[in-house]
């Protein structure tokens, strides 16, 4: 019906011109009349009881309009409902916008101040006197799980907040049949994607409604939080431009939304709060520190018969995100492999660190790390080639659609091909030859060359019913499947505006939606514009209206495609009437509807005749149809509803089977599965332990590409983050649970100097179940990249007999590994 003139091409970015010119509109750029500026008082203690809070002096400071203390918060707000990530919480524990009785991590919010300037609000913070009764803090899962450990949440009776397991197939049988059991302990550290724009809220409360401008990825979380905590019914959530999300801006931001909203209600004035960098580092949420005790049952030819994994997650002071890093492992539980028997046991251990939150893959980088480290380890123990061990276990290209033992349906893919192409592109054989020569002649003794090749999936399209597979006792069914809307409207002048149900954090929503609409309607993307960013009062939104779970490709693309095609039908219905033509005979080219044999080639003649006022019967422009639809009932068909707009809510038509868990606990954790092979070539400096990435090659299958340049950017960015994580960026706590990395410099974010020039080849295999064959793109390359670097570094260090078990591979850690090996 439509050709793809725009989908699949790198059509120019709609968003870039305003950002390059400094015309982006972020929350901090907004100003309301009589607006106050808020600051948050945060805990200096990792674990303490709050005895008294005296805010009198702060309240009396000139310029200060309000102070909200823990007592106010307890009195004036209700605790949050546990929310989507709290599955597995044994006892309901009230969680408020700030700490009310105890503080449980450094940086936990304790009070909020509003003043006429930000500087004055900061002055006032220093005048708030908080009496703390310090408690012993626990900074590791081992310390927290000890019988003598101080309880962080007394209600739970233990710091092990949750434990449980999932098992698929006959795990014991697989272990009995095995020729060998390969065991390993693996660890991933705490890190974050540190969006460059920290949290930001601006709230205005009038008797009519409460409006919040907030850089949330999931406006539904903010909407629910304000309604639940403050009892406000008429809430409007507006999300302007968002300076990066990566999962960070989904969950904990709700605390601040409620505190700022409460302040706006108390003072009767608009209140803006902008988090600063150190606040974000200590309290904005971290990706979970994870430890895995793994056992693989293998046959002597490298076939993996089964796997047992004990996953211990350090979830920090979190209760409302207690199990997310466990449950998300269901999304890539078998990675790209056809293994049938697996048991994953989990423990969520509460410590006095920052709560964990979603972050570029949530748990999935850990799961991929387990598989890919184990593939290398199995190869070593069986004296096989690591690539061959992977090949031995990959799902075959002829097996798609492939259902994993836990119910995920991989629609399409060719994992062998991804691996083959990565090997060719990275010149694998040549690297191996060079490595052997350098080892032979001793030239590689100081700069040790290594190569690692791994493979992984990037799941997309969230299904919250997944959690029921782990928590069947859950009384309330979480939103199953997905729903997301879009609205497309033809304006009077023939241009098109549209509204999406979900916010963008830099994924080019406007560009890509315009490409889809342009192809559906037969017009140029230049004449299409997004009507504005997310606004809960105007945007059609549902449970999937969230910039999370890689939702855009599935729900937004489906919704905007559906709405555009609905609008096309209405345009054609009106055009057929106006032209007196058969509906089937109509064609649209460049915003003009032609009947019968007429075509755009005659356009010049049409223009000439239009100038002379001659009547034309074989074509009508969008602008002419727009004028009719909004202002001339006489030219509409009798039963035609005026106006030319269409709204469409998309639900994944192939969400079943397994949208809900079956008796075996099988459920579709996500709906699409992109995949990629990553090859890293590194050089390790023996003297300093510093790792330099010489080449980084990716071959990626993201299904039908909407805009290749956009997908390239997402792959570059997520790979760069995973590489930076592997090489040393991360949060470091002291034994007293004080955070030592409060700035981006201490934290160790890679710059242009450390980040390699990543190389990409696309190998798209369209998904058979999605609207246009598309699969997820966004966070994907952050999933296998830590494993790729680990594999390459281990390979470089292999002549010294070093194995890599723990991330990060900071110069300090690598140097220590080298020293240990030399001493031994």
């Amino acid at each position, binding site marked *: 019906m439509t050709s793809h003139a725009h989908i699949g091409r790198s059509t120019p970015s709609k968003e870039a011109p305003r950002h390059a010119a400094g015309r982006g509109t972020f929350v901090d750029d907004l100003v309301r009349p009589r607006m106050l500026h808020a600051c948050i008082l945060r805990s200096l203690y990792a674990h303490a009881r709050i005895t008294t809070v005296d805010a009198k002096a702060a309240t009396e400071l000139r310029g200060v309009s309000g102070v909200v203390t823990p007592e106010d918060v307890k009195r004036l707000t209700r605790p949050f409902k546990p929310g989507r990530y709290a599955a597995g919480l044994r006892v309901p524990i009230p969680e408020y916008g700030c700490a009310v009785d105890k503080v449980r991590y450094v940086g936990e919010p304790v009070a909020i101040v509003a003043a006429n300037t930000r500087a004055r609000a900061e002055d006032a913070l220093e005048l708030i006197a908080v009496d703390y009764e310090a408690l012993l803090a626990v900074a590791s899962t081992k310390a927290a799980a000890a019988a003598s450990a101080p309880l962080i949440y007394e209600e739970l009776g233990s710091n092990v907040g949750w434990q449980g397991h999932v098992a698929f197939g006959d795990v014991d049988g697989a272990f009995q049949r095995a020729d060998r059991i390969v065991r390993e302990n693996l660890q991933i550290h705490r890190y974050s994607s540190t969006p460059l724009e920290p949290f930001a809220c601006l709230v205005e409360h009038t008797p009519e409604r409460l409006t919040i401008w907030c850089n949330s990825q999931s406006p539904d979380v903010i909407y629910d939080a304000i309604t639940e905590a403050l009892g406000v019914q008429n809430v409007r959530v507006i999300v302007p431009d968002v*300076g*990066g999300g990566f999962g960070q801006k989904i969950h904990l931001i709700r605390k601040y939304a409620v505190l700022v909203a409460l302040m706006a209600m108390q003072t009767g004035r608009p209140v803006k709060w902008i988090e600063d*960098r150190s606040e974000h580092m200590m309290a904005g949420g971290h990706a979970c520190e994870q430890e895995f005790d793994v056992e693989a049952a293998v046959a002597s030819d490298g076939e993996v018969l089964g796997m047992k994994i004990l996953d211990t997650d350090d979830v920090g002071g979190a209760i409302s995100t207690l199990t997310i890093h466990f449950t998300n492992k269901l999304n890539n539980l078998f990675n790209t492999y056809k293994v049938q028997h697996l048991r994953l046991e989990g423990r969520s251990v509460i410590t006095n660190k920052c709560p964990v939150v979603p972050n570029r893959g949530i748990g999935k980088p850990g799961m991929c790390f387990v598989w890919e480290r184990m593939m290398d380890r199995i190869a070593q123990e069986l004296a096989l080639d690591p690539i061959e061990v992977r090949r031995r276990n990959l799902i075959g290209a002829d097996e798609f659609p492939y259902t994993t033992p836990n119910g995920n349906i991989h629609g399409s893919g060719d994992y062998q091909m991804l691996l083959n192409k990565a090997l060719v592109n990275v010149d694998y054989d040549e690297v191996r030859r060079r490595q052997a020569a350098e080892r032979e002649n001793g030239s590689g003794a100081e700069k040790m060359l290594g190569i690692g090749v791994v493979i992984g999936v990037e799941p997309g399209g969230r299904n919250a019913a997944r959690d029921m597979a782990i928590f069947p006792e859950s009384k309330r069914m979480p939103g199953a499947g997905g729903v997301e809307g879009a609205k497309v409207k033809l304006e009077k002048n023939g241009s098109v505006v549209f509204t999406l149900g979900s916010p963008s954090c830099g994924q080019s929503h406007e560009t890509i939606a315009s490409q889809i609409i342009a192809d559906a309607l037969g017009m140029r993307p230049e004449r299409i514009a997004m009507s504005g960013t997310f606004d809960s009062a105007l945007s059609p939104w549902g449970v999937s209206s969230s910039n999370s779970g890689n939702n855009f490709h599935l729900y937004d693309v489906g919704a905007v495609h559906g709405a555009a095609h609905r609008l096309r039908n209405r345009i054609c219905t009106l055009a057929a009437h106006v032209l007196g033509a058969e509906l089937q005979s109509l064609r649209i080219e460049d915003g003009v509807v032609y009947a019968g044999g007429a075509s755009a080639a005659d356009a010049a003649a049409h223009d000439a005749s239009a100038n002379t006022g001659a009547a034309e019967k074989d074509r009508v422009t969008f602008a002419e149809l727009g004028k009719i639809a909004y202002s001339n009932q006489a030219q509409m068909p009798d039963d035609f509803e005026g106006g030319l707009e269409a709204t469409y809510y998309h639900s994944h038509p192939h969400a079943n089977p397994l949208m809900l868990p079956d008796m075996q606990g099988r459920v579709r954790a996500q709906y699409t599965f992109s995949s990629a092979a990553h090859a890293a070539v590194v050089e390790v400096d023996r003297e300093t332990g510093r790792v330099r990435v010489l080449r980084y090659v990716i071959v990626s299958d993201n299904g039908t590409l909407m805009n290749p340049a956009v997908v390239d950017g997402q792959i570059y*960015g997520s790979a760069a983050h995973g590489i930076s994580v592997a090489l040393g960026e991360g949060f470091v706590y002291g034994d007293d649970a004080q955070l030592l990395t409060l*700035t981006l410099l201490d934290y160790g974010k890679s710059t242009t100097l450390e980040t390699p020039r990543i190389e990409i080849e696309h190998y798209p295999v369209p998904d058979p179940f999605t609207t246009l064959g598309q699969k997820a793109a966004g966070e994907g390359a952050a999933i296998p990249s830590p494993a790729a670097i680990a594999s390459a570094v281990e390979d470089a260090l292999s002549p010294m007999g070093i194995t890599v078990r723990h991330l990060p591979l900071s110069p300090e850690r690598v140097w220590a590994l080298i020293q240990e090996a030399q001493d031994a």
Partner: protein
Amino acid sequence: MKKAVSMTVNGELCEGEVEPRTLLVHFLREHLGLTGTHVGCVVGECGACSVLVDGTLVKSCLMLAVQGHERDVTTIEGLAKDGALHPVQEAFVNGFALQCGFCTPGFVMAAHALLARNPDPTEEEIRHDLSSNLCMCTGYVQIVEAVKHAAERLRQ
């Protein structure tokens, strides 16, 4: 006690009264409404607030507004001329060298300063210079390419 400051910003004389502790970036954003200059860390690590002061690249969170007194400041809003984007801006747009756009004004200013000093930089020189700025979205590949293209355009 407020201090009077006056500076030329994007060719226009701007005056204001500020507390001595006011940072240049806050003066630009809050007093002058030039919100294209962003605050990502406020301690000079991310470069989102980069501007030119007397032609030199400066992180405006590391400078007080009073230190800008009687000086010439160029912000991201001052690069486009007669409604046409500056070649560096154009190269960022055409090269998909941005995603969320929050770091972009800082990167554009840093690239502009680099090319004013070194019209034909190598990739190594570009990466060295731009290490003053952080981007969490792009992995820098398309940014570096955009700077190369801008250099080429500007040399023509």
